[in-house]
């Protein structure tokens, strides 16, 4: 990347908001909607993805001079698939129940465009240190985005948060929110909010620029 020198903290921070993988880059939608029907599922998926992202970014960055250009996609996919297989077994070893509720979606981390995208766009061209920061930032941003969607869907759709009931029994849950449609709607809602906030910031900056003589 040509241009200004990016500070090391910025490598991490950019993944949280400015280049948030779900809401700004619109990557990794499949798991974002599929596994975000409860907060705990969203958190687990986010952490698992962050782990794979981190490990594959580290591997790709460490091996970047070793992997020739023509073989890179195949190599990246092999590396990512291996870490995903590892995560799959690790989660099963931790809790069968968790593994069941996440189902096939752990395996689907391998086709999360976010991981392949970061490996290709960043880790293969940057030092190990920066790649780690980038991966962590993107991973945390992804997890946070997933949590936003998950929290909304669980509160409205099941009346609970992390399994703890929030409302008395008389609360009529919006079951649609834990169904696929709800995923789409929740994401649309957050996307609108994010777009609106970004627009306002851009307008405020523009006004500030015009104001200064």
């Amino acid at each position: 990347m040509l241009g200004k020198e990016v500070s090391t903290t910025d490598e991490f921070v950019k993944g949280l908001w400015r280049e948030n993988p779900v809401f700004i880059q619109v990557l990794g939608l499949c798991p974002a909607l599929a596994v975000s029907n409860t907060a705990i599922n969203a958190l687990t998926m986010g952490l698992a993805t962050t782990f794979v992202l981190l490990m594959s970014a580290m591997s790709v960055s460490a091996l970047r001079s070793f992997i020739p250009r023509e073989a890179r996609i195949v190599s990246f996919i092999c590396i990512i698939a291996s870490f995903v297989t590892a995560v799959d077994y690790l989660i099963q070893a931790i809790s069968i129940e968790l593994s069941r509720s996440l189902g096939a979606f752990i395996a689907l981390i391998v086709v999360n465009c976010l991981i392949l995208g970061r490996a290709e766009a960043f880790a293969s061209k940057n030092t190990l240190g920066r790649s780690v920061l980038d991966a962590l930032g993107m991973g945390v941003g992804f997890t946070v985005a997933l949590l936003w969607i998950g929290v909304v869907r669980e509160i409205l759709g099941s009346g609970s948060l992390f399994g703890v009931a929030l409302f008395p029994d008389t609360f009529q849950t919006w079951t649609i929110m834990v169904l696929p449609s709800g995923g789409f709607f929740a994401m649309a809602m957050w996307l609108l909010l994010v777009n609106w906030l970004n627009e306002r910031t851009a307008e405020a900056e523009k006004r500030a620029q015009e104001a200064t003589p």
Partner: protein
Amino acid sequence: MSDASHWSVFVNAALVNNFVLAYFLGLCPFFGVSARLETAVRMGGAVSFVMLVASVCAYLINLLLDVVNAPYLKIISYILVIASTVQLVEMLMRKLSPPTFRAMGIYLPLITTNCAILGLALFQTNRGYGFTQAIAYALGAGIGFALALVLMAGVREKLDLANVPDLVKGTAAALIVAGILSMGFMGFAGLGR
């Protein structure tokens, strides 16, 4: 071998548990390619073909891995097979129909990261489908995916001409449409048992 009938497997994959609208698989191309009806149809066709090939290969890989007792190689084998199939489709398309190839652009190689195809392979394995059931499943999934894509494209083309607030234009509108389509497909539940 699961004892579900072929018809129920097919209908389930195409409508009741539509890969895009119920399982959230294949969303990247779904939102990326559904702006134009023509590309949507072509993408649907390409994905269906890759699904068919992937399904057969997944079945064979499973047999092989069961024989050598190496279940941990499933994910990596599936994804490598899918990547190769997409490469093959790309080469075929470039030879047989260059204009289609150019129209699809970047989206053709992106079929590799289409979670729908890997999802197909994984679900088929988990449910223990036999060979003919796997084919029915792949056909159903492909047609369902193409159907969702075409419906989405039709709506989005019309939406482009409508008076939509700037904030909502683009992905947000597409998400809301997808949510409504998903609700519509919920009406198929219980069909074809």
